[in-house]
C-alpha cells in the first residue's frame, strides 16, 4: 500500500514537471484515431515538435476551435465543418488540402451473403428488420448513407426502420453485436472492425452517386502559435510515409 502510494505520488510529480518542448496540437476526427497514433513518431521527427493529438467528432473539434482552443492543425472527417471554419476566417485557406477519401459500404454479419447490384440491394433492404446508420442529422456517415439511398430511390423503403447511431462506430457496433442484421458505414470502419471477420462487407456504394464526395480536409488553424511547424505537419501528412499508412487503413489517397 505504502509503495503504491509512493509510486502514485512520484508519477504525479513527474507528469507535472515535464520539460516544455515545442508542441503543436492536431485536432483530428475520431475515425482517424488508429492511423494517426501509428504515425505519431515519424510526424514528430518531421516537424521538430511534439504532436499532441486531440481526437473527437468533427463537430466537437470545430466548436473548440471556434471558442479559441489552442489548436494548430484541424483534420476533419467532413467538408462541412472545415467550410464553416473557413467562412469565419479561422483556418488559413491556402494551407487547406483534401487529403483523404473514403467510401460507403453495406455491412452484415459474417454469415450474410454478398450483394451484387442495385436489384439485390433492394431485396436485402426490404427483408431486413433494421438498418443501422449514423444519425443523418449529426453523423457524416449517416448523412452520406441517406444521400446514397435517396439517389437510388431506396430511402423511403428503409426510412421507418433505420436505427440511428451517435457515431459511425456505434452503427458498426449494432451490426457486430447482431442487434441489426445490416448497416451502412465507411469502408475504413468495416476493415478496422475488431475482432477481424466479425462483420462482412456485402456491398460497396459507387462514390459517383453522392453529390458531395466523402473527403477528409486538413488545414492550419489561423490562431496557430507556430505556423512553420504546423505547415510542416501538413506536409508530412501529404508525404509518402503517411500516404502508405492511410492506404493501409483503407482510405483512398487522391
Amino acid at each position, binding site marked *: 500500500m505504502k509503495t503504491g502510494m509512493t509510486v502514485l505520488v512520484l508519477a504525479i510529480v513527474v507528469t507535472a514537471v515535464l520539460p516544455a518542448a515545442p508542441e503543436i496540437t492536431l485536432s483530428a476526427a475520431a475515425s482517424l484515431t488508429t492511423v494517426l*497514433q501509428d504515425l505519431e513518431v515519424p510526424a514528430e521527427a518531421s516537424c521538430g515538435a511534439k504532436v499532441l493529438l486531440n481526437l473527437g467528432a468533427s463537430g*466537437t473539434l470545430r466548436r473548440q476551435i471556434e*471558442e479559441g482552443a489552442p489548436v494548430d492543425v484541424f483534420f476533419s472527417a467532413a467538408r462541412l465543418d472545415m467550410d464553416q471554419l473557413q467562412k469565419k476566417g479561422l483556418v488559413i485557406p491556402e494551407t487547406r488540402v483534401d487529403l483523404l477519401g473514403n467510401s460507403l459500404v453495406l455491412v452484415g454479419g459474417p454469415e450474410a451473403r454478398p450483394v451484387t447490384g442495385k436489384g439485390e440491394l433492394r431485396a436485402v433492404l426490404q427483408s431486413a428488420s433494421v438498418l443501422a446508420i449514423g444519425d443523418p442529422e449529426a453523423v457524416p456517415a449517416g448523412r452520406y448513407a441517406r444521400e446514397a439511398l435517396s439517389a437510388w430511390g431506396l430511402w423511403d423503403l428503409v426510412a421507418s426502420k433505420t436505427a440511428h447511431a451517435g457515431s459511425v462506430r456505434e452503427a458498426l457496433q449494432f451490426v457486430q453485436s447482431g442487434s441489426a442484421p445490416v448497416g451502412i458505414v465507411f469502408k475504413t470502419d468495416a476493415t478496422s472492425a*475488431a475482432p477481424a471477420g466479425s462483420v462482412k462487407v456485402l456491398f460497396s456504394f459507387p462514390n459517383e452517386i453522392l453529390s458531395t464526395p466523402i473527403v477528409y480536409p486538413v488545414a492550419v488553424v489561423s490562431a496557430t502559435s507556430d505556423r512553420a511547424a504546423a505547415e510542416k505537419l501538413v506536409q508530412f501528412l501529404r508525404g509518402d510515409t503517411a500516404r502508405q499508412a492511410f492506404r493501409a487503413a483503407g482510405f483512398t489517397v487522391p
Partner: protein
Amino acid sequence: MSVFAPILLSLKVAAVATVITFLAGLGLARIFAARRVPLRSVWEGLLLLPLVFPPTITGYLLLVVLGRRGLLGGLLAHAGLQVVFTWTAAVIASFIVSLPLMYQNCKAALRSVEPQYAGAARTLGVSEGRIFRRITLPIAAPGILAGTALSFARALGEFGATLMTAGNIPGRTQTIPLAIYSAVEGGRTRDANILLGVTVVISFVLVAVVGWAERRMFFPGRDSR
C-alpha cells in the same frame, strides 16, 4: 497506447476535483443551511443546473467561458494562462458537475443535526466556529462522507464536459472515460476492456473505503473486529 497514463490522470483529476468540491460544497451548504440568503432559490437553481444539463452542454458553456474568446478565458490569456486543453480544465469540468451532489448531501446532513446541541454549547459560550467543528460536523459526517464519495465517483466518470473543454489528448488530458471512448472508436477492444476492468476495481475499492470509514464513524474503536 499506454493504459497507465489515463489511469494516473483520472485518479489525479478526480482527487483534486474532489478536494475542491468538498470545500466548496460544504462551505456553500453551511452558508445556505444557516443563514437567510437573498435570492436563495436563484443561487440554488444555478448550482443545480449541471445536474440537469447534459454534460456536453455544461462543457460547451464552460468552453464559451474559458475559451480564448470567452470572458474569463480572455482575461486569463492576457495573464499568459491557458486553461482549455489542460488537465486543469478536466478538474474544473469534474468540479462543476459534481458540486451539486456534494452540496445537496451536505445540506441534508447539516439540516439533520438537531439545533439543541448547538444551542446548549452556545449557552456555555462556545464560539460558532468551534460549535461547527466539534458538534455539527461530527454529527453530519456520514452524510458528508456519502456526498464526497458520490462526488469522487462522478468526477471519475466525467466524460462530456471534459471532452469539450480539456480535449481528448492522450497522455495529457485523456482520462479513463475518454480513453475508453477512443479505444472503442479506434477498434482497440483490448485496451477498452482493460480500462473497463480498472474502473470496476476502482469502484469496488471506493465502496470498501467508504464502508470502512462509515464503520469507524458509527462504531468508533470497534473497527478492529
